């Protein structure tokens, strides 16, 4: 055969050149996506550890537990979030958002949970992004967590706070539980206004349902303590201090 196909026309060869370029672009993007996914998974798993650490808090060991949590959280930031920042370096953050969003949400969850337990306040998006700023190469756009991932992380936070509240009541810290209740209600109320405006509101809608359940669980727990504490017991009179209930310090 004369193999005429080896003599390619200009159009054909320029097409091949162009597609070689496209192939490079796609390969590069896919490889980067893969690295970002991995970084995100690392952030997730380590943020979860921070959350569990915070849950180890009880009436008597608050400082030490939170101190360790703070260190762990800093390690997540410096080690894993920093790697995500490096992997993303310079890309359009929105392009690969689905690849890193789960990790970032979990990080927000961990950071805000820690902050609330430490100070009783909400860690703002601006504050988180302030922490991330030094991680970025100054010559590139710094990675900034977007509002959506922040809010999605916040939605998950309420679930952790619910667990925290139930635990606090068990520990006799009723007022702490009530503080959580107020805080979670506030977040729920604010998110009720925001949720339908979010870019992909379905994911948030599911989380809102779970959140309402969390609020109700906390409220029911507070109700339960309250009615018990208010019970009038004619037999005994009122010499029993009715509100210091449920402290376990006198268990033994």
């Amino acid at each position, binding site marked *: 055969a004369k193999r005429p196909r080896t003599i390619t026309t200009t159009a054909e060869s320029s097409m091949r050149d162009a597609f070689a370029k496209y192939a490079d672009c796609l390969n590069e993007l896919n490889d980067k996506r893969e690295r970002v996914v991995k970084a995100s998974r690392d952030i997730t798993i380590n943020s979860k550890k921070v959350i569990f650490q915070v849950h180890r808090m009880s009436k008597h060991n608050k400082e030490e537990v939170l101190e360790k949590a703070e260190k762990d959280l800093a390690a997540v930031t410096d080690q894993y979030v920093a790697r995500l920042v490096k992997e993303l370096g310079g890309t359009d953050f929105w392009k690969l958002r689905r690849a890193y969003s789960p990790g970032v949400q979990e990080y927000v969850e961990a950071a805000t949970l820690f902050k609330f337990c430490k100070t009783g306040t909400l860690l703002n998006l601006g504050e988180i992004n302030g922490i991330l700023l030094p991680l970025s190469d100054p010559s590139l756009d710094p990675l900034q967590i977007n509002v959506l991932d922040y809010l999605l992380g916040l939605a998950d936070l309420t679930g952790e706070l619910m667990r925290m509240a139930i635990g606090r009541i068990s520990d006799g810290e009723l007022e702490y539980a009530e503080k959580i209740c*107020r805080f979670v*209600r506030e977040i*729920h*109320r604010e998110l*009720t*206004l925001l949720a*339908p405006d979010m870019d992909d509101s379905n994911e948030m809608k599911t989380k809102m349902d779970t959140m309402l359940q969390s609020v*109700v669980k906390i*409220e*029911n727990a*507070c*109700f*339960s303590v*309250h*009615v*018990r504490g*208010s*019970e*009038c017991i*004619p037999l005994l009179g009122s010499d029993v201090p009715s509100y210091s209930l449920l402290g376990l310090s006198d268990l033994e």
Partner: protein
Amino acid sequence: STLEKQFEDFRHHLEESESLRERIRAVAREIESVTRLIYSCLLLVHQSRPIPEVLEKVKAQISKLKELFHRLAGILRECPGQYYRYHGDWRSETQTVVSLLGFMHWLETGNLLMHTQVEERLGLKTSEFGLDIEDYLIGICFMSNELPRYVVNQVTAGDYDCPRKVLKFLTDLHAAFRMLNLRNDLLRKKFDGMKYDLRRVEEVYYDVKIRGLTANGDSTRDLGIQGQS
């Protein structure tokens, strides 16, 4: 050709219908936005904010709602006989409106807001644009879902008479609904949910009662549910 002529007519028809629908949806979106504001205000009653204060904040929004339903009625007047053609485009928003108005009215008076009262408040009474009965009923079911949470939070805030009143209201409402012969549709499903609200309120009332926390001290005497203040 006649074929082209016919499709030309269809094009006009479909475009008009589409633009009408677009306008309806725009109003529905605004209604949704207002209801969201109202709902987020009403959530404050769970935090034991004084009811008059809460209702005061909300009332400004009601006239907005009225205005929006007026616009809706105006749009539908352009296509007489086609209320139900576009019904799906505003019905879920309307159900939410009913649930919110109903909840507010109940907070204020302890009574059920009637179908005609909703129409009045939304200014629907005079026009031929009315409130669909099923929408009203579904809205009322949604309202009922809010009550158990309200009762729990009221008791926590020290209002021990609340469960009795809510239980009375919900028992009557539930009995009234039972008179209806419902098909296996959304309304039926929502009504079935009301049973759980009722059960929860009964439990709260039980918790309060058994601990002697009802208002007038001698709680063992006034059992049962009597005339409400």
